[in-house]
C-alpha cells in the first residue's frame, strides 16, 4: 500500500510546520501531489502559498515535518543533494524572473549551458524547439525588457522546461494578464501537462481558471489544508472558509476587519497616547 502511494505521488508533504518569526504559517500541513496531474494550490493572499513553494523547492527549511520529492526528502542541509533535486524541478515565476542581461535565446539555453556539455548545435535545436512550444520561436533575439508580461512568462516556461523536469511549479501564473495572454498560459499549462506528462503544481488564487485547469485542488487556510478535491467538490464543500473563498465573499471566517482590539477601545487608547 505504502509503496504504491509513493509511486503515485511525486511530492508528499507530511505534517509540515513552519513559523516565520512569531507567526505560524503552517501548522501541520499534509499534501499529496499526484504524478502526471495538474494540482492547484488555492488560498487567500497571505496564507503562505509562496512559502509553501519555497518549502517544496528547499529554499526554506521546515521547523517540523518533511517534504518528499520522488520519495526522497527535500533538505536544504546538503547543497549538492538539494541542487540535484532542483534539476528535476522547473519553476515559472510570477514575473518570469528572466536574467535581464541575456536575450531570450540565452535565457532558455542558460540551464543547458550551466548543467550540460551539449554541443552548440544541439543546444540551439533544443532551445528553438522549446521556444516553438510556447509560440515565441521568432522572438529569440529579444531582450527580456522588450517582452510583455505574458511573453516573459512564456519564455520563463520554456526555460523551466528546457531540462525536462519531472515537476513544474507555476507561481501565480494568471496575475495581471489580459484575457488572451491568460488563455495562452492556460493552454500552455494544460499542453505541457498532457503532452509531456509533467506533474504540475499551480499556486494561485484564481478560482475560475483553476476550475478549467486542475485535476485536484487544495485550499489552504489557517496553516492547514481546509479542503481537498476536484474543483466541483470544492465548489460544493460544506466548510464556511471554502465557500467564502470559492464565492469571493468579503466577510466570513476570513474576516473583513483585521482582528485586534475593538473600534471604541482603539479610539480611546489612541486619544490617550
Amino acid at each position: 500500500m505504502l509503496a504504491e502511494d509513493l509511486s503515485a505521488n511525486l511530492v508528499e508533504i507530511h505534517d509540515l510546520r513552519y513559523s516565520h518569526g512569531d507567526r505560524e504559517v503552517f501548522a501541520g500541513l499534509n499534501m499529496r501531489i499526484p504524478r502526471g496531474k495538474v494540482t492547484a494550490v488555492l488560498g487567500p493572499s497571505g496564507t503562505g502559498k509562496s512559502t509553501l513553494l519555497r518549502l517544496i523547492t528547499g529554499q526554506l527549511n521546515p521547523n517540523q515535518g518533511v517534504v518528499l520529492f520522488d520519495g526522497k526528502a527535500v533538505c536544504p542541509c546538503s547543497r549538492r543533494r538539494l541542487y540535484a533535486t532542483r534539476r528535476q524541478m522547473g519553476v515559472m515565476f510570477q514575473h518570469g524572473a528572466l536574467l535581464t542581461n541575456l536575450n531570450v535565446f540565452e535565457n532558455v539555453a542558460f540551464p543547458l549551458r550551466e548543467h550540460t556539455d551539449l554541443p552548440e548545435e544541439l543546444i540551439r535545436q533544443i532551445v528553438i524547439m522549446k521556444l516553438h512550444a510556447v509560440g515565441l520561436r521568432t522572438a529569440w533575439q529579444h531582450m527580456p525588457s522588450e517582452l510583455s508580461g505574458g511573453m516573459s512568462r512564456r519564455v520563463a516556461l520554456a526555460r523551466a522546461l528546457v531540462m525536462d523536469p519531472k515537476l513544474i511549479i507555476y507561481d501565480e501564473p494568471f496575475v495581471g494578464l489580459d484575457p488572451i495572454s491568460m488563455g495562452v498560459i492556460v493552454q500552455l499549462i494544460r499542453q505541457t501537462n498532457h503532452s509531456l506528462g509533467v506533474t504540475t503544481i499551480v499556486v494561485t488564487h484564481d478560482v475560475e481558471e483553476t476550475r478549467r485547469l486542475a485535476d485536484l485542488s487544495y485550499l489552504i487556510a489557517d496553516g492547514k489544508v481546509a479542503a481537498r478535491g476536484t474543483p466541483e467538490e470544492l465548489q460544493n464543500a460544506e466548510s464556511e472558509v471554502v465557500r467564502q473563498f470559492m464565492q469571493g465573499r468579503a466577510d466570513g471566517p476570513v474576516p473583513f476587519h483585521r482582528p485586534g482590539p475593538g473600534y471604541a477601545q482603539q479610539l480611546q487608547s489612541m486619544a490617550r497616547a
Partner: protein
Amino acid sequence: MNDTIRDCWKSFGQFASTFGGFQLFSFRLVPYLPSAVRRPWLVTEQIYAIGALSLVLIMFGGLFVGMVLALQSYSTLVEFGSADSVGAFASEALVRELGPVVAALLFAGRAGSSVASEVGLMRATEQIAALELMAVDPLERIVLPRFLAGAISVPLLAAIFSTMGILGAFLVGTVLLGIDSGVFWSQISSRVDFYPDVASGFIKSVIFGVSASLMAVYEGYYAQPNAAGISRAATRTVVITSVWILLLDFILTVVMLPEA
C-alpha cells in the same frame, strides 16, 4: 539619557552584525575561487562591464589631478628654487597615494554603486531565486565574477590613473610652466623607484580593489528587495567604501612609509 545609551548600543550591535556578516560573506566566497579559473570568461565579461567602462572616467580624472598637482606644487617648489622637481613630486604623489586612492574612490562611485544596484535588483526581480531554483549557485555565477573583476580592475585602473596623471603633470610642466622635458623625466626617474614607490602603490590598490568590490557585492546581495533598499545599498556601497579606503590608506601609509 537611557534612550541615548540604548540607541548607541543598538547602532553598535548593527555595526557589529554588518561587519561580522561582511566577513562571513567573504569567507563563503573562498571555496568558489576555483570555479572562476574553470570559467574565466565570466570574469572577463565583468572586467569589461565594470573595469573597461570606467576607463574614461579614470583617465579623465587622472589627467586633471596630475595637471592640478603640477600647478599647485610649482607655486611652492619655485620658492625653494626646485621648480624642476615638479614632475618628481607629482609622480611620487600619484604613484604612491593619489593613484590608488582616487582610482578606488572613483571606482566605488562608478562601478561599485552599479554592481550593488545590479545585484540588488536581481534579488528584487527574483533572478537570484530563479538561479537557485535552476540549481545554479548565485554566489558562484553572479557574485564571484563581479568581485574578482573589481579586484583585478582596480590595480589596473590605478596604474592608468597614475600614468595619465604624470602625463597631465608633464603637459602643464612643459607647456605652461616652461620646465625642460628632459629635466622633467630625469627628475622622475631619479626620484621614483619601483621599490618602494610603485610597489607600495600597487599593494594599496590591490587591497582597495578587494575591499571596494567585496563591499559592492555584499551590499547588493543583501539589499532589501525593493526600491528603497536598492538605493540604500548603492549609497552605502559608496559611503562605506570611501570611508574604508581613506582609513585603510592612512594605516597602510603608516606601515609602508620608508624610514627616510
